[in-house]
């Protein structure tokens, strides 16, 4: 991996606390923590609260930019006056310790909420005030498949800074001007990397990539993925419960609902997560439903992620985090689907 043009520095492990202390003067810091055996990204007061011994967070980071419930505006139900003032975002935030797959998922969500005009002001406000510091992966989970979807254990896409955990220190690579802002705080305590440290990083990542071999070939599966009428679709959906867990935990799923709520005399219009896997998602007021059974809905989910998104945004909407596989109650496994798609002539 070329380091050309990107600043690389080394931070000693014992200096991490000082680094965070300096950062916390300007930023709210969210880092990985284990609470009741669950790894989550929570606000931390110091580096000591960080648990580095995790594979990945259970919840994806999308809630930091696209919360489960978001008030779009409130109104007076009598006068129907609309109150558009949004709550202030106090300080800037750092999301520290995101895995490269999750960082890449933010880059994908940006395509929907920022690049696809008109931009979404609620997302933008949270996005522009957040810096992403990812932590490269050295121990993938059995359900990870990032390398099969153009991502990897050290993907730099979506992050402002990437940390590599070496023996006794961290190698820090600054990826964006916003990232420079973050690393600049530690200018006094970082030092340039030695040849030994650089080669240690290459070695660690080479081993990580070896553990993370491609499990399917997206190009090879593409022909069936693009075929709306492939007979495969009639078999794949049967065990799906339509429970929506895959979509809610997926870092790149972004479907939402907009509803009005009234608690007299005030009301609000809210945006909440929704799922294409639900029966009523595409139900017209006339009673017509273009996706009446789980077959159509399962097909929509997979084609949207791997076919339509590629055509629309240029990239599949999947980063291989494996959450959909881990948490599906009936063990629907997208890797298994892809392999079956590859078999189709």
């Amino acid at each position, binding site marked *: 991996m070329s380091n050309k043009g990107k600043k690389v520095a080394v931070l000693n492990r014992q200096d991490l606390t000082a680094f965070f202390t300096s950062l916390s003067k300007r930023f709210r810091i969210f880092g990985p923590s284990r609470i009741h055996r669950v790894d989550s990204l929570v606000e931390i007061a110091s580096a000591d609260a960080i648990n580095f011994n995790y594979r990945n967070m259970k919840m994806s980071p999308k809630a930091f930019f696209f919360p489960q*419930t978001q008030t779009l505006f409130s109104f007076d139900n009598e006068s129907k006056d609309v109150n558009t003032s949004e709550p202030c975002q106090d300080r800037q935030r750092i999301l520290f310790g995101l895995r490269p797959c999750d960082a890449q998922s933010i880059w994908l969500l940006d395509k929907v909420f920022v690049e696809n005009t008109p931009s979404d002001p609620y997302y933008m406000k949270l996005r522009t005030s957040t810096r992403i510091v990812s932590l490269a992966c050295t121990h993938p989970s059995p359900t990870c498949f990032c390398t099969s979807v153009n991502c990897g254990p050290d993907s730099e896409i979506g992050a402002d800074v990437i940390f590599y955990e070496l023996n006794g220190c961290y190698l820090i690579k600054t990826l964006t001007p916003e990232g420079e802002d973050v690393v600049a705080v530690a200018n006094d305590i970082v030092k340039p990397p030695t040849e030994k440290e650089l080669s240690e990083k290459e070695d660690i990542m080479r081993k990580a990539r070896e553990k993370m071999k491609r499990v399917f070939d997206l190009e090879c599966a593409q022909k069936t993925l693009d075929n709306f009428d492939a007979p495969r679709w009639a078999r794949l959906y049967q065990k799906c*419960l339509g429970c929506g867990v895959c979509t809610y935990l997926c870092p790149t799923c972004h479907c939402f*609902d907009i509803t009005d709520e009234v608690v007299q005399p005030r009301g609000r219009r809210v945006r909440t*997560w929704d799922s294409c896997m639900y029966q009523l998602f595409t139900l017209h007021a006339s009673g017509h439903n273009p996706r009446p059974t789980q077959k159509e809905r399962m097909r929509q989910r997979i084609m949207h992620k791997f076919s339509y998104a590629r055509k629309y945004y240029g990239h599949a909407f999947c980063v291989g985090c494996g959450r959909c596989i881990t948490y599906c*109650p009936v063990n629907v496994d997208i890797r298994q689907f892809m392999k079956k798609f590859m078999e189709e002539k």
Partner: protein
Amino acid sequence: MKQAEHEIMSNVERLFADKKIDLFIGYEKGTLPLRTSPCFIDDRNTVRRLVWNSCCSNNLAVYLPRLMLHRKGKNSKRIGILCKGCDSRSVVELIKEKQVDRDCLYIIGISCSGIIDSSKILSELDGEGILSYDETSDSIVVELAEGERSFPKHEYLYESCCNCAYATPTVYDILIRTVQFAPKVAGPDPNITAFAHKTREERWRIFEEETSKCIRCYACRNACPNCYCKECFAEQTKPRWIGVTNDRSDLLFYHTMRIFHQAGRCVDCGACVRACPMNINLRLFTRVLVDEVKERFGYEPGVSIKEPPPLATFSLNDKQEFMTEPD
């Protein structure tokens, strides 16, 4: 285990050969360690996919309402299904609620001594990769990079299995008996009893705390065989009963309503708890209602097809102290 598997396969093959069923729902090997997955067989050539082991957790009855809806009438398909004790009780309730036609079903009952909670084992292994696994009559044996580890089954069961009184299905066309690996301690679940004996304030606090984790994904509802409404109250717009957000009031309302919809119907199979991605202890609350209905009306769901549901019938013996002697 293997013998039970062979028995299942040969029965299903025979059912297809005799043209007694059009579709069989069972379990197949999962893609993750210690997991199986529901399996739909419509052709005797694929019967070999079926498995039976201590990881066959899913309640397959959940698929019946949607299959039956599509296939009512003279041309309805006949469906074979593998049922453990809890699954068979779900089937009994579905028959009573007219969601499933008994005549369209061929039930292969299988006696079960409890299902392994794979997440308990996985969390002890703390991310260590399982290379392979096997089971003996009383243990799960996993092979890791550094060697083997053995987990005694009775210590790693799902909570809903620990005190289950229904190792043998309550309805079946044919029963496959399996070896019980440990004497069942059927009886009240101590966790549920402890909860029921807490003060009202304490119980409410626990309910609020547990439901605050909810992300309104509806996995609990979709995994439950009892939740077959075409339009769930939580999604109705005419009228809108409940908001769709994860605000505190919406979460409390959703779970309260769902739990009360289960009164007298929930068989405590644990499907909701297994499906919930946020580890909410849902059965703590549904089970309290199950126990209350049992105490009040002497009724347990899923035991007898002939016994009418208590909330749909009135008997002169019904307790009325909540009216005659309110607190």
